[in-house]
C-alpha cells in the first residue's frame, strides 16, 4: 500500500519529539478522528532552525510529519509557507488516495505552528489564516471488514 519511502520515514522517523520553549507550536486533528499532529518550530531570524513533531495517527500521518519537519528545517518562513501537502506527498513518492488527507494534516499543522509564532510575535505572515481544525470530511476507503 505505502511506497518504500513512506515506510522508511515511518520506520525511522526523523524529528520525533518536542522542542522546549518552541517559538511556534501547532496542533491539529483530534483524537476522535484518530489523528492528532503536533508540530514544534524553533525560529530564528525568520529561519526555521529546528522542527519536531508528535503524532497520534496512521503510518502516513507519521511519515508525513517526519518528512514535513525535515523539509522545513533551514527554510525561511516564506519558503515554508510554500510547502504544500502535495509536495510532502511527492517527497514520499506518493501516498495512496485515501491517505492524501494525512498530508493535509501535516500542512495544516505547520501553518498552525507558524500562526502560533506570528501571534506570539505580533507578526502577520502573507497568506496565513488562523487554523480552524476542519479535518472532518468523511473519507471512504476501498476495503472491507472481516
Amino acid at each position, binding site marked *: 500500500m505505502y511506497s518504500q519511502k513512506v515506510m522508511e520515514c515511518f520506520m525511522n522517523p526523523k524529528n520525533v519529539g518536542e522542542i522546549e520553549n518552541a517559538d511556534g507550536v501547532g496542533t491539529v486533528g483530534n483524537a476522535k478522528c484518530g489523528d492528532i499532529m503536533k508540530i514544534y518550530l524553533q525560529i530564528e531570524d525568520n529561519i526555521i532552525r529546528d522542527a519536531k513533531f508528535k503524532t497520534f495517527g496512521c*503510518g502516513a500521518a507519521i511519515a508525513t510529519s517526519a518528512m514535513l519537519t525535515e523539509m522545513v528545517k533551514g527554510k525561511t518562513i516564506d519558503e515554508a509557507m510554500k510547502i504544500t501537502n502535495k509536495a510532502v506527498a511527492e517527497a514520499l513518492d506518493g501516498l495512496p488516495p485515501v491517505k492524501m488527507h494525512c498530508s493535509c494534516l501535516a500542512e495544516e499543522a505547520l501553518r498552525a505552528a507558524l500562526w502560533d509564532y506570528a501571534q506570539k510575535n505580533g507578526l502577520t505572515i502573507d497568506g496565513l489564516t488562523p487554523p480552524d481544525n476542519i479535518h472532518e470530511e468523511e473519507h471512504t476507503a476501498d476495503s472491507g471488514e472481516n
Partner: protein
Amino acid sequence: MIYLDHAATTPVKPEVLEAMLPYFTEHYGNPSSIYKVAQRNKKAIDDARAVVAGHLGAQPNEIFFTSGGTEADNWAIKGMAEALKEKGNHIITTNIEHHAVLHPCQYLEKNGFEVTYLEVDPDGLVSAEQVEAAIRPETILITIMYANNEIGTIMPIAEIGAVAKKHGIVFHTDAVQAVGHLPIDVHAQNIDLLSLSGHKFYGPKGTGALYVRRGLKLPPLLHGGGQERNRRAGTENVPGIVGLAKALDLACQDMEAKNAKIKALRDYLIDGIKARIPYCRLNGHREKRLPNNVNFSFEFIEGESLLLLLDMEGIAASSGSACTSGSLDPSHVLLALGLPHEQAHGSVRFTLGENNTREEMDVVLAKLPAFVERLRSMSPLYEE
C-alpha cells in the same frame, strides 16, 4: 510469516484444494445438465449439502449455497423483510453486527422498515431479555450474530432463539465467525436462518451458505435459473461448494481438541500482553469468547501504525477498525462497547488458527511491547 488474522480469512487447506481440483478441469459439466458427466457434479453438490446440513443439525434441503457470508446475510434479511412486509415492519438486531447485516438493515430503514439496534454491554453481549423487551407486535425478524468478528464475544443464541420461538418471530443469525469453530445445532437453538462463509474455516473464498428452516418462505435475492430449487439462481460453483463442505468437515473433526489447543495459546497471548504492556484493555468478553480471538486496545497509539510495525516483523494482524485504510472511521463495535474514540482507534486484533504455535506467541510477546512503547513515545497523547 506469523499469520494472526484468521478471522479475516484462512488459507485453503491442502486436502480442501485437492477435493476441489477435479471439478475445475475434469468434472466441469453443468450440474443442471442431463448427461452423465454432469450428473456426477450434481451428486457432488448433493453430498456437500448433506455434509453442511449434518454439521448444523439441519436437513440437506434446508441448505442453500451462496457466494459468501455477505450474500447469505443480505438474502436472509432483505428476503424475510420482503416476505413478511404485510405482517410487520420491525426488525431487531444489535449495534455490533457485521456490516453485511447492518447495511442491509439500514437499506431497509430507507424503505419503510424500523430497526432496533440493541446496545451491547461493555463486553459486547446482548441478553435474551433485551431482545424480548424490544419485541413489538410488528416485529418480523430478529437478526443477531452468533459471535462477533472483532472482539470474539459469543452471543446467547439458544436463549435468543427460545425468545424468538416463544413470540413466533423469525430468527436469523450471522454465524460466519462461529461455523466450523463452535458446535451448532439449529434445531436445539431455535435458529430459523443461519449464514456461513467458507473462507473462515479453511475453505475457499467466494463460497457460503444460508440455512433456511424448512417451511420458511424466503423469496430469492438472485432471480434467474432454477438452481438451488428455484431459490438461488446462477450456475453452481461446483469446486467452491465441494471445497466448502470438505473444509467444514475437516473443521468439525476434533473440534473440541483443536479448540482447547487454540484457547490455550489465546490465553497465553492475552495474559502475556497484559503482563507486559501498561494501559491496555482486552476487548470482548473474557470467557464467552471465540477460542481464537484476542483484541486489545493500547492507549495513546493508533492501530494502523502498530500493524505496520508488526508487519515489518512478519506478523500479520488487523486493526479493530472496520476499515483499515482510514482512521477517521473507528470500529463501530469498539465504540459500542463504550470505548473512547482514541482507544477505538488504538485496537489490534490477533486471531489464531490451527497451525499457530507457542513459539509464535512468544515472538509476538517479545516484539509487541517495544512497538507500543515506540509509538507512544511519538504520541502527543502520552505523557509519562
